[in-house]
């Protein structure tokens, strides 16, 4: 089956990527100044205590040995124990993953909902005032620091108007929708600006394409031309972009989750870095890498679903 083969091929290509990711993060983490033993035992601990902790964590072994251990354990699905959380890294990650996953999906959906229609309006009115207004507004969204947007939304929509809760993650689907709306919106303001830009350009390009002219010449109804011919084609490049910006989206969650007190992976990552929690940093990075790769894979698959030229035979 061609589809399966394609997936397998993509998976095969992911192997060297992951090894590279593991090497990079392993080295990077070990280059971090500051001693995880101090992070564990605190500033007050004696030097002897620290030495004992280092020994126990295997931090005194040669780097290569440490890496091999990390590598083989990871292959067996064992990400080690979090130093600061004192539990298995995979448990912590599995615990937090749904929240961040929900936030990311929510943000992507919001971005599409915002960017999609507006991109159409802008593209169809190219060069006229709606286009200019829409582009400028999104440009502003693109140049605002995430933590600032977040804070403004919080102050006015949550604290002043009390439309949304200030922080936390909520329970159940609707609870999460309610709690995560503002954080998702914060991330979406940024992503939707990127998507809008791209989609608008894509729509303009497709509107000029010969096959759209031909569809007009066929006397098709407008709705069919825009929906079937224009949108589908414009979506193709936008989907790639969406996949690519998922990495940025994850970066966005780092700060957003901190500002909105959302207990997700992004905030955990910041905490882990500051606590020098080596296993947790490594585990989180791998998780991010896997998530992003899955998204790449999905966008590729979705794209090949949309675009018959991409279907391998």
């Amino acid at each position, binding site marked *: 089956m061609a589809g399966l*083969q*394609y997936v*397998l*091929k993509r998976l*095969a*290509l992911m192997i060297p990527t992951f090894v590279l990711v593991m090497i990079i993060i392993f080295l990077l983490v070990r280059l971090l100044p500051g001693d995880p033993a101090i992070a564990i035992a605190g500033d007050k601990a004696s030097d002897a205590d620290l030495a004992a902790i280092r020994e126990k964590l295997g931090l005194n072994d040669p780097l290569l040995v440490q890496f091999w251990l990390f590598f083989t354990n990871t292959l067996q699905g064992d990400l080690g124990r979090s130093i600061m959380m004192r539990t298995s890294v995979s448990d912590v990650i599995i615990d937090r993953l749904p929240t961040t996953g929900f936030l990311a999906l929510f943000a992507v959906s919001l971005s599409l909902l915002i960017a999609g229609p507006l991109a159409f309006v802008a593209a169809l009115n190219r060069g006229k005032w709606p286009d200019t207004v829409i582009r400028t507004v999104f440009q502003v969204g693109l140049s605002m620091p995430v933590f600032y947007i977040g804070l403004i939304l919080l102050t006015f929509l949550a604290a002043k108007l009390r439309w949304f809760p200030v922080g936390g993650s909520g329970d159940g689907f609707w609870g999460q929708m309610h709690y995560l709306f503002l954080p998702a919106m914060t991330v979406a303001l940024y992503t939707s600006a990127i998507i809008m830009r791209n989609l608008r350009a894509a729509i303009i390009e497709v509107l000029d394409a010969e096959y759209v002219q031909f569809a007009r010449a066929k006397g098709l109804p407008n709705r069919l031309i825009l929906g079937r011919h224009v949108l589908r084609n414009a979506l193709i490049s936008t989907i790639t972009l969406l996949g690519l910006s998922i990495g940025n989206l994850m970066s966005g969650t780092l700060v957003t989750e901190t500002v909105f007190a959302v207990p997700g992976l992004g905030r955990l990552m910041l905490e882990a870095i500051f606590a020098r929690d080596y296993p947790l940093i490594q585990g989180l990075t791998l998780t991010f890498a896997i998530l992003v790769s899955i998204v790449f894979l999905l966008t590729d698959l979705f794209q090949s679903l949309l675009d018959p030229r991409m279907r*391998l035979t």
Partner: protein
Amino acid sequence: MTQTVMKIDDLHLSFPVSRSLLDVVQRKPGKSVNALNGVSLELKHGETLGVVGESGCGKSTLARCIVRLYAPTSGRIHFEDQDIFDAEAKRDRSYNRRVQMMFQDPYSSLNPRMSTGDILAEALRVHQMRPEADIAPRVAELLGLVRLPQDAAEKLPHEFSGGQRQRIAIARALAVEPEVLIADELVSALDVSVQAQVVNLLLELQERLQLTILFVAHDLRLVRHVSNRVAVIYLGRIVEIGDSETLFSAPSHPYSQALLSAAPSLDPDDKGAAIQLEGELPSPLNVPPGCPFHVRCRHVTAQCRTVVPALRTLEGRGEVACHHAEEINQHA
């Protein structure tokens, strides 16, 4: 017109279709586009060899092989008895000076950010054709040679029409004083009257500079007009090659016949003589066994389906690759 400058011997070239990693792991044979399937040719000094054939039959591939843009899968090209794909020969850039190519697309074959003068001067400098002081006069001379006004040197390619651009491309090729010119559909993108201008220029220059030209085109009238000899290519093989006038007035291969008859006559009353071919051009991805033309040929026999016909000399004609050339041409 006797001395052979270039000899092409059983040239094969297939482009691998990109394979998935899985295929490689499973050692599945890769698919490939067989663009050239055994082309043999000789280019004689001072002649113009026309190459015709349908789109995708391998004309450009052949041209690009000759200038070493593509390396053939097998076969050899000798230039003055030197194999041009020798490791040693490859290092020798003088081959690239002596054999020049001009491209079909007048819009993409010139660097859009370099002025005409820069384009020509660069060629002169890199190959040290002239001392630095003589470069500007030589550029002027070249512009004159291809009949471009002198102020053209300062202009960028987009300021020229298609025909003028092709002349710049010719000037660039001539700058390095080559011996062989490969013209890959040099005029196909141009209008008839502009086509005529460029062809005139080419003919004149050839006369003057004793150039050898390989002229690839699909406009049969034009090929007939400029060529001394003509090769007809079908699916990466030469099916007929011979003297231009003979071939055009009496084509021997059934494919050549169909090709010539399909060219619409300029005379409105001259209707209905076309030989209708059945079916589609087979894909170079899977070239049919036997004679490549057999799937569309009216004269097909069992032999044609299995045995590849070799190019052989036909009495009073050129060389033809057809099992039934004699019979067909008796009736014709």
